[in-house]
């Protein structure tokens, strides 16, 4: 049945959305750690 492609599309979309969000969390973490390190150096 051709509708199986919708099933895989839904599963892939779910993990793409989670992956993009987790990527944004990791990126923000590294940016903040960098800022905190720079603030520490200035002191």
């Amino acid at each position: 049945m051709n509708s199986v492609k919708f099933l895989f599309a839904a599963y892939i979309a779910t993990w793409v959305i989670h992956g993009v969000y987790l990527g944004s969390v990791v990126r923000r973490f590294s940016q903040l750690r960098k800022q905190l390190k720079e603030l520490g150096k200035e002191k």
Partner: protein
Amino acid sequence: MKRLFPILSILTVVLLAYALYEALVVAPTDALQGDVYRIIYYHVPSAWTAFLLFFINFISSIQYLARAKPSRDRAAKWIVIGIGVLGVIATFIPAVQHLLPNGMRPSAVATTVLLIPIFYLLIGRWFPGDRLDVLAVTSAEVGVVFCTIVLVTGPLWARPVWGIWWAPGDIRLTSTLVLWLIYVSYLMLRGFSNSAQTQMLAAALAVFGALDVPLVYFSIWFFRTQHPQPVIGGGGSMDPRMLHVLLISWIAFLCFAFLVCWSRFRLELLKREVEQAHAMESLAGAGTSSKTSLPLTRSSR
């Protein structure tokens, strides 16, 4: 705690893989829809997780508003306990049971009502001070991610089954979209406003926004809608093997959501620490330029 995170991450990945195997291989094929119905194992647990996170956001926002005054905080606590106790008693009164829609189990309503004081008291105990606001923003952001998945997987399921991507005017679909928009606006308010009142305004918006959650949930009982009846709490009937896989999938998604919330919570704490460090630095800069000494104290976190 640092050691616990990788252990829980590994367990969650194993659980998610097991849930995926159960969803794609073990669960029986639906006689009417074929294999495409298996979208349910991602669509429904995502919706339940989003609702739970918006509920946590609602409770933490109420507490954040209530804590502004000690008397208000005490009153809110007793009101919430009262709602829980009276709500549970009311669901066992036959006259109230008649008001419930067909198929909705009173025990399901009682459990949901009982969760309000339980969550209120636990959140209040575990998240003191500003951490309540951190929890509110965390739960809203992760809730929006899960709600986005609901809005993406829903049309992907609807297209082969209903023949359309979206049913315009359908109350379930529209109210879910409105719910998503409310929480996106909540996050935008928090992201773009620098006012001292932002946290209070966001908490007030969250309290009103959460009113849409029961509308989304109960819409399929009270209005004519294309959306099928719920699989838990009454109404719909589901093969026990399918229900078993659905619950495994939800547990896996809950574990995953917990880990994502944990990371996001730590990120918010770090963000506030950086903001505080920036503020202290600018205060110190202002102090040296005006040749005056400022008493700099770092608030405990």
